[in-house]
Structure formats: C-alpha cells, structure tokens
C-alpha cells in the first residue's frame, strides 16, 4: 500500500462540455436535470446515436499567431481555457512561480486525429493537401504543443494518452511532480473532441447506444460519445479551495477492450487512492462513477461499488448528462465532482429509470442534497487502464 500524501490545493478549475461553458453552466444544468445529449448531427454518414456536442466550436477563431494550430480539438481547448478565468489564473501562477517551475500536463485520447481524418478525405494524390500538411496537426501531442505555445510554460510538458483514463492520470502525474519538488504548480488539461474514428470505432465494437445512454439501467444499450475540455491548476497551498487528496492507478491485465470480470484493476486503483488520501471507504460521501452504460462496465463497477462502500456513500454516473468524453472524461468528471462538493449536490444518474438487479444501493437516480466532504471519481480505459481520484472540500 502506498503511504499517505500531503493534499494539494486545486486553485482553479473549469469545464466545457455539452452542458455548456464553465462551472455555472454545469451546476445549473445539473440542478435543472437538463442533459446535453442530442441526436447525432456530426457525422456526414448517418449513424443513429446520441452525442454530447459542444456548442460554438465551429465559430471559434484562434488568434492570428495560433492559426497554424487550427483544428476542432484545439478550438475546443481554446474555448475551455477562457472559461471561469482559468487562463488568467494559469498565467498568474506562471508569474508567481516562474515558467520553469510550472508543469503542463495534457490528457487526451485522440488529440487532433479529426484533422488527420480530414487530410485523408482530401488527399492530394497520395499526399496530404498543403493546408493540412503541418506535422503538429497530426501528432498525438498536438494539444500539448498548442497549449505550451499559448501559455509559455517551461516546466515538464507531455501528453498522457491512456484512452479514457488519460485526463484522470494527469492529476496523479502533477501531484508526483509537486511532491518531489520538481515544480511548484501543474496546469492540467484534458481535451477530446468528436471525430469519425471514435464514433464509428465504438460503433464497430457494438458499444454505441442508438438512444441517449442510460448508465446502470437494466435496459442500457451502450455509450453516448461526447466531447469536452477541462482544466485544473494544482499548487501546494491555497485558501478556501478544494483539494486533491489522493490518486490510484492500476492495470487490469485482462483484455484490451473488456474490463476484468471481477473489477480487479478498479479495486486496486480505489485501494491506492484511499491509502494515499489516508481515508477508508466509510469516509467517502460521493463517488462519480465511470458508468459508461456498456453492459460490462456497469455490471462490474456496480459490483465493486456494492461490495466496497456502506449504503450512506452515494454514487452516480454523469455520462447521461454529458456523454462519454473519452480522454477528457477524467478531468470533466473531476470538475463535476468538485461542483458536487462545493454545492452539496449529488447529481443523479440521468436517463436511468430501472437499475440492473441486483444493483448497488448507493446508486442515486434522482438528485440529492447533502454535505459532501470527500468524493471519488473513477476513470477506466481501454487496455485495462484504471485511475481513481480522491477530492476533498475546502480545508
């Protein structure tokens, strides 16, 4: 078991998703029970499914100096970066600590592969067309290069791409860099955007629901894919701000695209997160579940939930509100978890009416008002890659 770690201050955080731009839009949508999913109007070839599409990406214009980075994913990053004053907070942290003492850690699954898809649609003979020939539009690190240029950080900078756990794992990575004294702050960014690869790829795996996803419902039919941008700023100290208490990472060692049948990896990640936070399951008030609405994930995750936590721990999946934001899901749901703590609101599991039997008694379908001091967020990805994060309210 890992040792307890000192908690870190989350001095700024924001999210942009199908629920809107910024934290206020998100808490309002949760309170109003207003989901962000709509019928697929993204793919040229019809695909009957619901998607969590962010409004306004098509209208974003990057500043002239950044025009070379123009693609859907970087536009979404730009849209999200400006919300809730995050860009100003990040710039202030860089001035406070020095650019070389601030890490820039990026989590994404597909980065700007939408631009690569477009380049292949518009092939010029057997080459990419000149307008889409820039290498920085086709690298898995495109988001990192874009944000490093925008922010001017000089600390460690890299992309973590572990599918749907990517932007949860950057919290763990940032915590390690600060604890070891390598940096004084870490800017965390998770962005993934809609593209053909993920919509038709998950469709080929028969994991896409034809209707808006219903996590943990007995009649669930698969995932709804979404897109999102989330940002967080980690520092050692901060007044009146929420805290990162712990993190746990593990590997299922079972299968590339199916979870371990007993949830072994999920249990290991959870145990390490609790140990680093110095808490036990009984201390946890709320768990934001991975809850994708695939048959397997929800079956395994509900079992782990029911066997690990007391009934007074409440839990829900927010995928029915936002869709599954894939590589950005970790940080989007971290921000939703922090909103739950701040506002004392357990968001329900939208679209779900009849939970699987037997299902975990902890699962909240309706919204619930209650004090939340400690909350967890689960993120599990292809390759059996798991991450659980533990958060606490303002000290």
């Amino acid at each position: 078991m890992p040792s307890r770690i000192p908690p870190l201050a989350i001095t700024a955080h924001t999210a942009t998703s199908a629920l809107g731009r910024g934290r206020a839009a998100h808490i309002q949508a949760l309170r109003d029970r207003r989901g962000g999913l709509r019928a697929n109007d993204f793919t040229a070839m019809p695909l009957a499914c619901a998607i969590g599409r962010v409004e306004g990406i098509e209208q974003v214009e990057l500043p002239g100096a950044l025009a070379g980075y123009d693609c859907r994913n970087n536009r979404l990053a730009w849209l999200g970066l400006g919300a809730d004053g995050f860009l100003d907070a990040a710039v202030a942290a860089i001035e406070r600590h020095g650019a070389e003492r601030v890490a820039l850690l990026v989590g994404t699954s597909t980065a700007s592969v939408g631009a690569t898809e477009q380049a292949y649609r518009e092939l010029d003979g057997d080459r990419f067309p000149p307008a889409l020939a820039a290498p920085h539009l086709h690298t898995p690190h495109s988001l990192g290069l874009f944000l490093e240029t925008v922010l001017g950080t000089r600390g460690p900078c890299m992309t973590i791409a572990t599918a749907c756990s990517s932007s949860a794992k950057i919290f763990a990575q940032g915590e390690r860099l600060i604890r070891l004294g390598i940096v004084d702050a870490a800017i965390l960014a998770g962005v993934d955007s809609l593209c053909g690869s993920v919509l038709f790829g998950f469709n080929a795996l028969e994991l896409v629901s034809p209707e808006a996803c219903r996590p943990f419902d007995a009649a669930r039919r698969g995932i709804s894919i979404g897109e999102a941008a989330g940002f967080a700023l980690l520092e050692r100290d901060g007044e009146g701000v929420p805290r990162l208490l712990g993190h746990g990472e593990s590997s299922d060692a079972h299968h590339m695209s199916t979870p371990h049948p007993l949830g072994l990896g999920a249990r290991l990640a959870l145990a390490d997160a609790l140990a680093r936070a110095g808490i036990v399951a009984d201390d946890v008030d709320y768990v934001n579940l991975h809850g994708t609405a695939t048959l397997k994930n929800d079956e395994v995750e509900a079992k782990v939930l029911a066997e690990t936590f007391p009934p007074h721990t409440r839990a829900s999946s927010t995928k029915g509100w936002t869709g599954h934001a894939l590589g950005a899901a970790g940080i989007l749901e971290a921000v939703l978890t922090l909103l739950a703590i701040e506002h004392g609101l357990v968001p329900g599991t939208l679209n779900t009416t009849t939970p699987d039997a037997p299902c975990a008694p902890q699962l909240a379908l309706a919204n619930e008002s209650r004090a939340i001091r400690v909350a967890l967020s689960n993120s599990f990805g292809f390759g059996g890659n798991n991450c659980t994060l533990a958060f606490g309210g303002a000290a």
Partner: protein
Amino acid sequence: MNDTLTVHIEGIGWCSPGLADWEAARGALREGRVIERTGSAKSVPALLPANERRRAPEIVQLACDIAGQACAMSGRKASDLPCVFATMHGDAAITENLCLTLAGNPLELSPTRFHNSVLNAAAGYWTVATQCHAASNAVSASGATFAAGLFEAAVEAHADGIPTLFAAYDSHGEGALAETMRLSTTWGVALVLNPQRGPRTQATLHLRHDGRTQVAAPLATGTPFEAALPLFAALAHGRGGDVRIVSGRSTTLAIEVLA
C-alpha cells in the same frame, strides 16, 4: 530544493535496423560503427504468448520485445514493475487504415484495429501478457518524447520508491501520414530504473529538468532515435559524462551519466 532525480539502470533493451538487442548495439557503439538510422527492424517479443503475438500490431510487438529484454537483464519480474511506454507517433499504420476506411465506408471500420489504435496499446498488451497490475502509462511529446518518457519513468520510480520500466519506440511506415511525419526508422529502447542503488546496478543517471536553456528546437518529424543515441553511446562505452536532450518547446533534460 534538490530537483535532481537519481535512478540506477538495472536492465537495457534495444532494437534498431540490423541491431536486435543491447548486446549487438553495445558492440556497434563501442567499436564506433555507423548506426543504421533508416529501415525496419525485426522484433521478437518473447514475453507475448503466441495468440497475443498474432493479434498484436507490429509496433506493439516491438515495444514488448525491448521491454522484455530490459526486464530479463534486470532479473526482475515484469509483473512487479509499473511501466511507462513512450511513443512519438503511435501506430501510424493503424491510423492510416482507420482514416482511409472512414474516407471510404466508415461502417467497415475494424473493431480490432480500433481498439489497437489507442496510444496505450503497447501498455495494454504488455500488462496482459505479463499479468502486471501495477500502473501503466503511455506518454507522447512530439520531438521531446524520449526525454519526457524517461523523466516520467524516473518521477514514478521516486514517487513510490520502486523500480519502474521505461520503453520508447516508434516504427517506420509508408503512406501519406508516414511521409508527412517522416517515419523512416523502426527503433526502440527500454530501461529498468531503480531509485535505489543495488547489486544489479549497471550505471547511474542524475536527471534534472532544465527549464532555462534550450539545446535545440524539438523536431516535429522523424523519431527520437537521434535524441536518445548519445545516452546509449555513453552507456555502451561505460563512461561517465553529461548528455543534454531536448525535453520541450524550450527546455532540456540534463543527464549526468555515472558509469
């Protein structure tokens, strides 16, 4: 504040055109032979079971080959080691195949190719094959990928005080994406890094992130093979020295090698 990370190398893996393992590469580097920088390389992923070897893409077999070599030399069980896999481009052949299918008939997309397309495919196959339940990571950082992955592995080793596996690899390729990214070399290197000195220590590295100086702009194309070579040349010669590798847009990873 001491921001230097010291790691002790216990195992080394290698694969490049014409040089199948570290023993071959060490010989070539010691003798000052020209290291072939273009072409493909045959990999032998000993730890991948036969059925996984059939399913795994070539680049995953490459990653599992070098990772297996480093583990074998260290004498450590792969199942005990957290792992950091770093790749600048991931699987360009699969990306091209998916994009061409999407441009033709998206409904014909292969489900296996899709799940193999994630950047952590190597980490996924590796942890399944070795029954490793520890944390596994997949890192990419354009032309700074080698430095970023090595640094992350050292950070993870120190954060929990346990030996960690690091592997960096990329593959040559053909097609529009491979041409745009200039994917002309298959190469891979792996290290088992222990934060503590021990009887298996072969060499020691002091790693420091230098955010004030720039050795060179990171390359947007090609592979990080060239960036990694000076470190492995120093290891091959068993000589100490300083190596500086580009680690970001305007940053450097400073490495002091103690033989």
